[in-house]
Every structure is written in C-alpha cells, then in structure tokens.
C-alpha cells in the first residue's frame, strides 16, 4: 500500500469479499446440500444453511459408492506417482546436470519434449500400449530379426507381454512418464555452485555420495513443494484411471466414483448423498493445499516456469 485512500480501501475489500463469495460458494453449497435431508435438498428455492443430516448422508454415500477401497486405491495411486516421480526426477536430473557424457543433450531434449503434450491428447495409443507395455521391445526385436535368430538357435520364442490393465503399475507408470519433476530438479541443481562439487570431490566423495549426502538434503524444500503438487494433481486424475480400470470394483479410484453418485434422470433426486460423497472425495487434496500452502505455491511456480 502506498497512499491512504479510504474509498480505494473500501473498493479493495468489496472486491476481495466478492471474490471470496465466488470462490467459496461451490464449497458452501456442497456442504449445505450434503447436510440436508432429501426433502430439504429438493426444496425450491433451497435454504442455504446446513442441516443435521451430514453424517447419514456421508454414510450413505460411503456405502453406495464403496468409498473405502476406492480411497485406498486413490491413495496408492497418488502416493505411488509422487514417490516414483520424485525419485526418478532427482536421479535423472542429477545425471543430466552433473555428468559429462555423450548423448547428454539428446537425453535432455528427449525428456523435456514430453512437457509439450499432455496425456489427454495421446490417450488412445497410450491405452493400447497399456495392454502390453513390452510391445515396443518386442517390435524392436522382431524387426531386427533377433526373435527369429533366437528361435532357430534355441527353439525358444521370445514373446514378451506385460498387461497393465487393472493393475497399480498401470495406474501409476503412464502418469510418471512426464518431465515436470525433472524440470524442477534441473533448475534447482543448476543453482548449486561449482565450488560445492569441487569441495566434495576434494574430500573424496564419489558422485553417489555427493548426491545422497549433499544434494538431497539441500533439495528438501523443493521435494516437499513438488510432492504437494504431484499428490494433488494425481489424486484428481480422471480420464486415465477411467480407461485403465475395467474392473472398477477392485481398481477404481474415488474420482471415478463421482459419476455413479449422480442421481439418475428418472430416479430419486437425492443430491444430498451426491454432495456428501463429493465432499469426501474433495477433502484430501483440499487439505493438502490448505495446510501446505506455502510449499504448494512455491512448487507450482518453480516447476511450471
């Protein structure tokens, strides 16, 4: 604030309160509707004040959408992607920044080009690779004639297959195959002064020790920041889990269950249960964002720029 101006201060608060209303309204409506009984939620116009049926609705939504196992699946997927991405990102960024090897720039561009195309635009072929993740290697061996060679020599036919449909690796691996985390780590490693590398070399530490004892502790805040955004964005994935799990019962995630909670066109319009279910599903990422906001904002800004 530079000058004092009462009128402008009032305008500022007015706009901020208006913005608050816009942002909070959907949350408020979700909570209100989720706490009302069927009669209350069907009233026109609706009373925008919470009622006393929240617990019943939560229980009803929990059993109807089978949220227990689905929450577990979502958790496995989100934590799995977060952990896998952070580990892979840190070691590959380490290799790119601190090693001088042939093909370094090619690797760099191969990995960073993946930032350009989100999963949604290549969804059909990605789905087909998930049916057999080893297919590229099979095709390479086939075209090189190695399959035929091995078959004539040993009588064994190389037939590689790894079906990812309805499995945790299927939910996790394709979401790990982008460069978001690698980019963040590269940016961070570039700020490490050369003197630090030289000093630890002088003290006789090899590259792995330097990575483990110096770089990882230094990157702790970046790691937390990255973990928050990865967790939130993975939890909220919809299209990919929808495709990869035909067996919804054992591998479905909570976000997929939302659709099954929507009242049917000619059925009972029990939006109160739908909203209670939506509340449960929204809560984990919302908690992460609300409680870890400082890291979250930092991770977002440094990984996307």
């Amino acid at each position: 604030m530079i000058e004092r101006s009462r009128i402008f201060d009032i305008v500022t608060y007015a706009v901020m309160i208006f913005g608050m209303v816009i942002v909070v309204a959907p949350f408020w409506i979700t909570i209100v509707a989720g706490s009302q009984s069927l009669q209350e939620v069907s009233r026109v116009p609706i009373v925008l004040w919470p009622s006393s049926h929240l617990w019943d609705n939560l229980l009803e939504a929990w059993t109807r959408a089978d949220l227990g196992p689905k929450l577990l699946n979502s958790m496995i997927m989100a934590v799995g992607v977060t952990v896998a991405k952070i580990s892979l990102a840190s070691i590959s960024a380490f290799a790119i920044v601190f090693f001088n090897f042939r093909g370094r720039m090619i690797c760099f561009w191969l990995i960073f080009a993946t930032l350009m195309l989100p999963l949604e635009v290549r969804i059909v072929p990605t789905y087909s690779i998930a049916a057999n993740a080893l297919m590229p290697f099979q095709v390479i061996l086939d075209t090189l004639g190695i399959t035929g060679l091995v078959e004539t020599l040993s009588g064994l036919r190389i037939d590689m297959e790894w079906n990812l449909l309805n499995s945790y690796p299927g939910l996790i691996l394709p979401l790990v195959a982008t460069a978001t985390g690698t980019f963040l780590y590269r940016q961070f490693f570039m700020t490490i002064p050369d003197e630090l590398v030289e000093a630890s070399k002088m003290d006789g530490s090899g590259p792995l020790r330097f990575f483990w004892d110096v770089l990882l502790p230094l990157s702790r805040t970046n790691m937390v920041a990255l973990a928050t955004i990865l967790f939130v964005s993975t939890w909220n994935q919809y299209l990919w889990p929808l495709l990869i799990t035909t067996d919804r019962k054992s591998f479905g995630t909570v976000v997929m269950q939302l659709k099954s909670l929507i009242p049917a066109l000619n059925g009972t319009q029990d939006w109160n249960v739908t909203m209670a279910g939506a509340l449960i599903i929204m809560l984990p990422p919302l908690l992460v964002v609300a409680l870890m906001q400082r890291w979250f904002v930092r991770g977002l800004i440094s990984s996307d720029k």
Partner: protein
Amino acid sequence: MERRAYYRNKGLPWLLIAPQLLLVLVFFYWPTSQALYWAFTLEQPWGGGNSWAGWDNFLAIFHDREYWGTVVRSAFYACCTTALSMFMALTLAVFVDRSLKGTRAFQSVYVWPYAIAAPAAGVAFRFIFAPEAGLVGAINGLWPGIWNPAINGYQALGMIIVCHSWLGIGYNFIFFLAALQMIPRSISEAGAMDGARPVRRMLDLQLPLIAPTVFFLLIINLISSFTDSFGLIDTMTEGGPFGSTEVMVYKIYFDGFKGLDYSGAAAQSIILMLLVVALTFVQFRWVEKRVHYN
C-alpha cells in the same frame, strides 16, 4: 550457465537416467508414433494388419461437418474460459497485492479451487445449475422453462465454461500474485509521486510489467482448456444435449473408445497435438523476445 565441475564416469549417468528414459520411450514416444502410424493407415475390418491410407483419414475428418463443429466449439470454449478465469484471477491478485489488513485470509482461500478435481467440481456445479433443484433452477419458478441445460445446448456449454473458469482461478491467481509481488515497490512509489492514481498505476505500470506472466498464463490456459475439459464434460453433460458440448478431446475419446475408430481418433489426436505444440512454440518464441524487459 555452463557448469565446469563435472563428474566423469562412463556407465553411471546412463544407469541413473535409464529408468526415466525407458518410461518416456514406452509411454510417450511409442504412443505418439503409434498415433502417427494409425493416422496414416486404416485397420482392416477382418484383421490382417493396417493398410496404408495416406491422407485419407485426415480428409475424412476435414470433410466432416460435425468435426468442424467440435473445433469451433473448442476454440470458443477455450477463449471464454481463458478470458473469464484470467480476468477474475488478475482482478483478485491486483487487489490482494495492496496487502491491506486481513488480506492473507482471502489470499489463501483463493487458491482452493486448484485442489478440486474437475469431476468433483463438475458434480457440484451440475447440482447448482440443475433445472429441477433450488439454486439456479429456482428461476424456473418465476419464468417456467427458461433454464434447462439438459435441453438447451448454449446453456449447457455456458455452464461448463463457468465451472472450468472457476477451477482455473486458483492457479492463475498464484501466478499473477507472484508476478505482481516481484515488481519493486520503488517503481510504484515513483509512479505515485508523479501523481498517478492507483487505477492508472495498475494499467500503466503493473500490467505492462507482468506482461510475460500474462502471456505465459494465456498459453497455459488455452492449452488446458483444449485438453483438460474431459472430466467436466463427462460428469456434467456427456457431450449432450445433441452434441452441443462435444469438444475435441471428448470426440477423440468417443470415436476411439466408443466408436472403436482408432484411425479417425488418431488423426484427430494428431491435429490436437499440432495445435498444442504450436501454442507452446508461440510461447517460447515470444518469451525469448520479450521477457527481458529490464
């Protein structure tokens, strides 16, 4: 910045980078080239591999009026959500940047929409806009039948646009605020000394100074509204009524997985990829040229 203190080791860097390279090759490059292959071939209905089709798949799409409908709709959708979301976020960020008392509370709430899964927001907004429910639907009590997104395609599209813009507020707000806070106070103070009122300073000082961020967000928002709308549309309208909310991503999904027309879906994917890549390149070119305003 070039680094001088390298480690020298033949095998180790490859070992470290191998897992990520493998993943990227299997789940990014293979599918992308597969999409290219499918786009230029046609699968035989009785099996027996694909036959070369040249540009036929693309020509078939280009002659399809329905496809052009989805393209125009996607472009409209992308422009509306981008404009609406960025405008709201920028307004909030500019006022939050004045950091009056109690601003922090507002600031942390504005970030919340980012945490919400698109389908969850879709379900909440579907209820808000449901014609039979008592929120927006209450208007039907005054003028019966005036609001019904289940029949009126424009209303359905508008409803999704509002929801998508709401979802984008948090993300845009974070970036706008960060950019505004990077502007040195002295510049605004100098402006004030010269007699520029707050509104004038916003338009003539702050906006030009955060132009790179505005442009970055513009591209990111456009890309995400072209590619990220599936979760919303699937929970809110499923492309209906009568295909009036069917955008490019939804049509790819529908043709590929419901219609099992892999070649057509792949050709559409390629077009969408080109669009996204083109937007990204525009960003790189522009940022390189204009970002060094100091």
